[in-house]
């Protein structure tokens, strides 16, 4: 028996949770893009200590499970550093660093996929490194990076559900709270799944359209 009143009676809590999820999705994607841009570009220099540093960053955050990163930043890091980290900051830092490492890889691969002849041609007309990147390489790389960036960002929205493990009141946290006093996990978690589907299916579709557009624009 599916009892809709469980959802309708607690729609306010779910709404708050959804806002929190969207909020974290947006801010961690923004911060992650900034991190990814810096770490990605650093890896494209010829100065090996920077390249190595970028590499270490990427492999570090890509290869530790996100849940472990979040728990570590929230519970372990404050003990190491002797500082107080709120759950919001822990969630923000953990998720941003994680997505940043993926964005960095996408950026690096995107730039490296641009034909080296483009760099030759830009260099030959006297362009500096900055001019080459800004005018010639990055515009071509970004076009190719749109599909993987979109895909990774969709994964990021789903990953925000891990915030519930460090008690950030996101959608999943609110759902488990509601089921704890209604004893109706079936209705509540079904609703959460449906909400993600409703938001992400159109976005996935949009990403695929962008991908097709990106290919035809070369």
């Amino acid at each position, binding site marked *: 028996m599916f009892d809709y009143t469980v959802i309708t009676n607690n729609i306010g809590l779910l709404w708050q949770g959804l806002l929190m999820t969207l909020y974290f999705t947006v801010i961690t994607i923004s911060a992650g893009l900034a991190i990814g841009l810096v770490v990605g570009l650093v890896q494209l220099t010829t100065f090996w200590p920077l390249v190595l540093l970028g590499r270490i960053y990427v492999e570090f955050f890509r290869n530790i499970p996100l849940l472990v990163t979040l728990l570590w930043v929230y519970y372990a890091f404050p003990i190491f550093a002797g500082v107080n980290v709120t759950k919001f900051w822990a969630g923000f830092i953990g998720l941003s660093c994680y997505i940043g490492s993926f964005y960095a890889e996408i950026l690096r691969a995107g730039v490296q996929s641009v*034909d080296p*002849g*483009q760099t*030759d*041609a*830009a*260099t*030959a*007309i*006297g*362009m*500096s490194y900055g*001019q080459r990147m800004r*005018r*010639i390489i990055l*515009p*071509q790389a970004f*076009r190719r990076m749109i599909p993987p960036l979109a895909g990774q960002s969709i994964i990021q929205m789903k990953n925000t559900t891990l915030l519930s493990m460090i008690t950030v009141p996101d959608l999943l946290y609110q759902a488990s709270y509601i089921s704890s006093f209604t004893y109706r996990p079936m209705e509540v978690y079904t609703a959460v799944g449906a909400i993600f589907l409703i938001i992400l299916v159109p976005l996935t579709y949009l990403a695929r359209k962008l991908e097709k557009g990106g290919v035809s624009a*070369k």
Partner: protein
Amino acid sequence: MTPTKKTELLSLDRICLQFGARQVLKGVDLNVTEGEVVVLIGASGSGKTSLLRCINLLYTPSSGKISIDNEVIYHEGSDKKVGSKITKREVNRIRSNTGMVFQQFNLFPHMTALQNVMEGPVIVKRENPATVREKAMQLLTMMGLEQHVDKYPRQLSGGQQQRVAIARAVAMQPKVMLFDEPTSALDPELVGEVMKAIVDLARTGMTMVIVTHELGFAFEVADRIVFLDEGVIVEQGAPQKVLLHPEHPRLKSFVGRFHESADLLRPFLEARMKENS
């Protein structure tokens, strides 16, 4: 320096280039006077493309000295902060004294033909876009591309793309034009139009260094042909001498095939030479 009729524009002095353990260029001397068209020929791996890329410092020689228009642009060790100090900014400015045309055209695919030609003068030289636009239109018209100025590279044929690439390089008003096998990537029926554009440009008095496998084209366009073999110049001279009366055994075997066809083409070639002189 001995006084000559024409001024020396490009001078390479004992240029060596090393990639790891492989010595690509083993001390190349080459002087090009103003308005001269020098064609570099040689087998694959002889170092002709590498030599060309040293002239605009796309490759940094391991030793030697390069000057353009009496300005030293590379001197042994100048990249290692010893000897003459040439900063990165200087290198970029120096590079815009040379224009380069590549085998694979390398047009910027996200820009129209016109934008490709305008990019250098506007972004690097910071010239007025309106003036540059006018100049770029003239250049593209000269290249026979007035119908195609607003097209993207992917909408153009290989021959058209290469002519845009020539216009892009010329727009920077270089002192020397460098061509790296400009017709090798083209379909046979498109080779002619690109060759014609290069010959026309040579007739305007542009100084050029051209790497090509098309010996007939070399014969037609060159003032001097330089034959490279395993990183050294083994023979050079006027086209008739190098192609029709080679002395060095390596050159003899290299132009052997050309000889056969040259015999067939001799009447045509002689007529062409009379017309040129």
